[in-house]
Every structure is written in C-alpha cells, then in structure tokens.
C-alpha cells in the first residue's frame, strides 16, 4: 500500500503524466474549438493519425522539426476543411461525416505510408524533440521536472491552451465563435457569417488535432507505426465534456488522464502479476468515465452544437 502511494511522490511519475497529457491537450483544444462553434468533429481520431504521419515523414525525409509540426497542422486543416464543407454549408450529419473522415484519414495515411516505405518492416526512428531544461525552475521539487524539463513541444501545448483561452474569451473572433455555437441567428443578425466562422473553427481545430498526433511521433515514440493513436481521439471527445467546453478545465482533465495512465503503468510494477495487467490498462478509462459522470451532469453544452444552420430559413 505504501509503495502504491509513494509513486505519487516520484518526479518521474509527474514527468510521464505531463508527457502523456501533451498530445491530448492539443487534440482536446482542437475538438473544443470545433464544438464551441457548433460542429462535432469525430474525425479527430483519423486526423491525429494523419498528423502523426505527416510530421514524422517530413522529418524522416530531411525536414526540420518545426517544419514537421507545420506540415502536420496543414494536413489537419485540410481534413478539417473537408469535414467543414460537408457539415456546414451542406449541413450533413456531423456524426456520420466525422466517422467517415476518421476512416478516410486513417486509410489514406496507411496507403501513403506503404507507398513511401514499401520495404520497411520495423519502423525507422527519427531525431525527435529533446527535453529543454529551464534553469532554476526545473530544480523545483516534483513539479520542476514535470513542467520545466520537457520538450519544447510540451511547452507549446501549454502555450496553445493559454492562447485558445485568450482567443475564446478576450477577442472579438472568440466572441463570434462562441455565438456560432450558441445561437447562429444572433451572429447572422449582427452581420457575421455563420458559415465562415464555423468553417474557420473546424479547420483550425483540426490543425490542432493533427499537431496532437504529431506529438506522438515527434516527441514520444520517435517513429510511426500503425495503431499508435489507439483511441486517444475518443478520449479527447470525453475530455471536452469533462472540461465543460472550457480550455482551462480541459487542460486539467488531460493532465488528470495522463496521471491515471502513468500511475497504472507504475502500479503494475508494484502489484506484480497478482492482478491481470489488462485491468490496469483499463483503469484510466474507467476513472475517466467516473470523472465524466461526476463533473458533466451540470455542464452546459453549446446550445447549437450539431444543429446545421441554413440562411434564409425559419
């Protein structure tokens, strides 16, 4: 029992928690932006796969790391525009389209992978982002290494959360975006285009999802292999609800999930094989569901979420 508790006081546990959380932070922010504008984006899982591959292949073929991030973002934005086109001006079902985007992005990625590397059996590694220790701060106990001895990609995740929060609550654009998800009529009555705002939000949100995917290949596993995203996209959908559609709370939710995940790995070591290891793998998901149930009953979702808007109709 004591050993199980001690895990919580090791620096490596907190470092791992934040690292596991980083891709989730990006993708959750991306989903949050889409949903705040009124569009559910179930393309998230596939877009993360595409982003993971796009970033990795850029670096593998000689590109610079930040170029890889940018290429991933552009790839995500392209899928986002497709999802936006189908669901916003054409008003198709957001669920069905989103699942379609996930299938399309996943299979296109594997196809491109096979085309680019026909011979490869074990996925080649790339020179990924390295940890960047921030002097003084990284010497703080526990949270020092967790927050200030990560890769620049992780720092970017925190910056992104702050920027999204600023955008949503402090800028005219954010106001318009929230209105698009609350009452599109209010937006249109003030002379703004619901279509433009929603399309923009879905493209930008999808870019963030793809960057989240790229984190996996460029700052965690350092190579690309199939099934690496492994349901992280779906976790982010739940994290948006858990965070009541607020960037700050969503960030905390992602770190909480990262902590559950890092904890279960270490707990396996302590408990040994008295309990089947699958139980531990399940743990973060079970805890997430419980947290979701506890938190989200009061959550107020965007009123116009999943409601298509057609101009000139009542």
């Amino acid at each position, binding site marked *: 029992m004591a050993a199980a508790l001690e895990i919580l006081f090791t620096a490596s546990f907190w470092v791992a928690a934040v690292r596991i959380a980083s891709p989730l932070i990006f993708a959750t922010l991306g989903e949050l932006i889409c949903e705040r504008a009124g569009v559910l984006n179930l393309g998230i899982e596939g877009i993360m796969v595409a982003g993971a591959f796009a970033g990795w292949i850029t670096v593998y073929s000689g590109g610079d790391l930040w170029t890889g991030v940018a290429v991933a973002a552009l790839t995500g934005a392209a899928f986002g525009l497709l999802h936006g086109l189908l669901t916003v001006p054409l008003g198709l079902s957001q669920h069905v389209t989103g699942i379609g985007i996930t299938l399309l992005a996943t299979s296109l990625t594997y196809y491109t992978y096979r085309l680019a590397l026909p011979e490869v059996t074990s996925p080649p590694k790339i020179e990924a982002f390295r940890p960047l220790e921030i002097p003084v701060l990284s010497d703080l106990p526990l949270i020092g290494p967790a927050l200030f001895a990560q890769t620049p990609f992780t720092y970017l995740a925190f910056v992104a959360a702050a920027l999204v929060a600023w955008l949503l609550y402090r800028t005219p654009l954010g106001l318009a975006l929230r209105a698009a998800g609350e009452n599109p009529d209010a937006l249109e009555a*003030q002379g*703004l285009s619901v279509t433009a705002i929603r399309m923009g939000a879905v493209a930008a949100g999808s870019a963030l999802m793809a960057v989240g995917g790229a984190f996996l290949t460029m700052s965690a596993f350092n190579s690309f292999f199939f099934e690496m995203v492994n349901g992280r996209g779906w976790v982010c959908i739940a994290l948006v609800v858990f965070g009541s559609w607020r960037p700050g709370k969503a960030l905390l939710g992602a770190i909480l999930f990262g902590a559950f995940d890092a904890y279960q790995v270490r707990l396996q070591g302590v408990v040994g094989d008295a309990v089947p290891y699958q139980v531990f793998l399940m743990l973060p998901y079970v805890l997430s569901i419980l947290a979701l149930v506890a938190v989200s009953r009061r959550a107020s979702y965007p009123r116009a979420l999943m409601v298509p808007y057609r101009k000139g109709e009542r």
Partner: protein
Amino acid sequence: MTGAAAAPVVLRLEGVTKRFGPLTANDAISFALRRGEVVALLGENGAGKTTLMSILFGHYLADAGRVAVEGRPLPPGDTRAALAAGLAMVHQHFTLADSMSVLENIALGTQPLWSPRLDRGRALKRIREMSADFGLEVDPAARIADLSVGERQRVEILKALYREARVLILDEPTAVLTPQESEALFATLRRLVARGLAIIFISHKLGEVMAVSDRVLVLRAGRLVGERATAETDRHALAELMVGAEIARPDIGPAQPGPALVEMKGVTVGGLGPIDLTLRGGEITGIAGVSGNGQAALAEVLSGTLAPEAGTLAIEGRAAGAWSPRAALASGIARVPEDRHGVGVIGDMSVTENLVAEAYRAPAFSRRGWMKRPAARDFARRVIRDYEVKCSGPEAPARLLSGGNMQKLILGRALDGAPRIILASQPTRGLDVGAVAYVHARLLEARARGAAVLLISEDLDEIMALSDRIHVISRGRLSPASARGELSIREIGARMAGLGFDHAA
C-alpha cells in the same frame, strides 16, 4: 409625435417583391421613411410584414425591387451592409445568445474580427451611457438567460443603438411585454425619435399604433393597400382597411351556468396558491393579471404537466387521480398553450402532424396503432379552411407559418371536437384584429354549447369583454370572483397591482 413631412428621406423601397413558390408574400411594395418619424406597419397574420423587414435586413433575397438608404442603394441579401447603412432590427423572435452576457451580445460583431482584444471597457462605458440616456436599464454583466422578456428586448434595442442605427425596425415588440413594459418602451421610442431616428413599428394592437405612430401603412395579402396619417384616422377605419371589411363586435347573451366541471380546492404548487377555483359549464372564467404572477403554474396544473402539491382537483365531480397530460386530455381538457414555439407546435413537423399530435390515439385518426393519414389530412384541410390558416397546404412544415398563423393552428387543434373544458392562455397574443374576433366568437360558441372556459389573459379589454366571472391573480393568489360588469376596469387594475389581497397572510 411631431410631424416630419419636411424631414429628409432615410429609407426608400421601390417595387419590392418576394415569392415563396406559388405564394407572393410581398407584391411590388414601395414607400419612403423620413427622419424622425414613426411609421406603423399593419396587416393581418401572414400579410408579409416580417418578410418585408427581413428583405430590408438582408435575411431574405427579394425577387424584384430596390432599397436605398439615404439615397444610396443597399446591396441585396447582405445583412452586414444593412447594418453598416444604419438599419437595425428587433426581430419577432429575439436573436440573443442565452448563455452569454448582455455586454457580449451587444459587442458581438462590432469590432473587426481580427483585432487582438475585445474592448470590454469601452463597450461597458457606452452601454451604461446609452442605458441612462434612453431609459433602457439592464445590467451589462448579466447573462441573457437570467433576464426577463422585457429586459431582453432592451438588450436588442441597445444592440441597435450601439451600432448608431438611424432606422430601427421593431417587429411586434409589445406582443411579449406586460402593459407596464410596453409603456416604458414607448417612452424610449419617443426619446429616440427626438434624436432623429426613424422607426418602423409592427403591431396588431391598434391602440398602440394610434398612440405611437405618425403614419400607418397597411399591408393585405402582400400588397400595400393603404396609407394614412395617424392623426386623420381612427381604430375602426384601420381595422377595416386591414381586413377589408368591418369587424362586428360579438354580442354576448346571458350565461347559462351549468354544473361545476372543474373544482380546485386549496391547490398549491410552486409559487401558486393555495387557491380555490371553480369552472362551470356554459361560463367563461377570466383570470386577469400581469404575467408572471402564477398564471403559468395554474395553466400547467389544469393541463396536467404539473400535479398539485397540496389540495384537491376534481374534474366533473370526480377527484383527479394520477394527474398527467394524458389524463388531462382524456378528461376532455383542451388547451391553448402560451408558449407556442416551445410547447405549442413542433416546427419540423407538418401542419397535419401538428394538428393530430394530441389526438393521434383517437379512433378518428388511428386503427390498431396505425395512423389514418387521409383522415388526418382531411381534418387538417378543414382546420386550415375554417380558421383561415395561411400556409401552402396540410404538408407545409409548421415553422414556415407566420407567427399569427401558428397560433391559429393551435386554436384549431384545441377547439375542434367540442371539448368540455377549454384552457386558453393568451389565446390572441400576436393575432390580427380579424383573427381575434374569430377566436372570441369560437370561445363564445363553446360557452353556448355548455363548455367551461378558463381564459388567462393580460389584455384587460379581452377579459372584460368575454368573461362571465373574473378573478385577478397576483403573486400566486386569486381574488374572489366578480361577476360580469361588477367591477370597472380601474378597480380591476387596482387589484392587479395587489390591492385587496391579503399577501401578508
């Protein structure tokens, strides 16, 4: 208000035409609006008033015609251009984001989208100034969801003023206001006109039109059929112009009270009660009062959506057991709900489906659980004809109907089939004078055949004209009944303000 004949023209429409399929909603409409005047736009339900204003505002695209603001042509179908030219509109159904604050709703879209910072400080200062200047009191930090209807309307007007509108369009602004709120609105309008704004005011209430407007335009079936200076006309002439015929006042015979069909004793629920109320067959019982004093709870108890927390409810002498909407319908209670968008109709369903929504189990419309479509459609055709519901046919989606026509649809559903007990909440809100007369006639008909009618209305004239017995409701309590003609309108007004109630108890 002051005459403005010499003032410059701010808005000019020429030959504006709009068709929806076979229906011509606006037919070659031309008129001019001058600085500092209030023009009232009158017309029956479905005459095309809202459509015309939506064209001005760029929400609908006209099939023909031109609009010019201060001499410059307005590009069609472009809301942003309309706003920039100084047009602003308070819609029949408000366009506010409920979970956002007053300030956010007002500031929405007023700054370039890409500016790095929303200037809350400046917005706050301007909103405070405007509130004070025009008597539009509202807390800029409050969430819209927490505001009353009257306050929401003030926010809509502030939105217009914040953009320095020169033409303000108000689509049935008083339909949802209490009489006091309407008075406050008129005071604000007077101040606005004094500052040189021009106002287009849509209303079915002729008294209001006479009080606030300088000029009246009358639309009938999409055409502009008349224009009058308000000072040179009167209510009767306007009503005639609107419906094309004189409206006869209903003549009301003496009541022939029958047995008590509904008896409430000590009924308490939420903020209502304890109240005692008896509804007799062959009588119309009126509930007068400013809305928000318990009318909604009273209506909900009778229609079965709320069960009484204490006290007894008996229908035709039998105690009502498990009380639910279906039980209420089964005991012959027909209702005309107050909130026609929320509860009254389902927008995406057709007129027919809406009409049979409460009666789909009745043998007339179903056989062993299957719906009899042809029977339902015939019923829909009859309601459309009898109640003059203007729509493209029984299959039209209900959301395409004009506000007043939706109300007629609900009435048709409620009153058809000779119900024994009728609950009518604000049955004529938003209806034109012709339709109001028709509804009143129908309620009196029900009374004549022995039905018990509960009429809940804020319109004192309506209550006084129809009710055989009048209760005043105030803060959830009912006054004792007064018989027809027993109290004057002033005495009832005093009771509405809470006089004669024992609220301390």
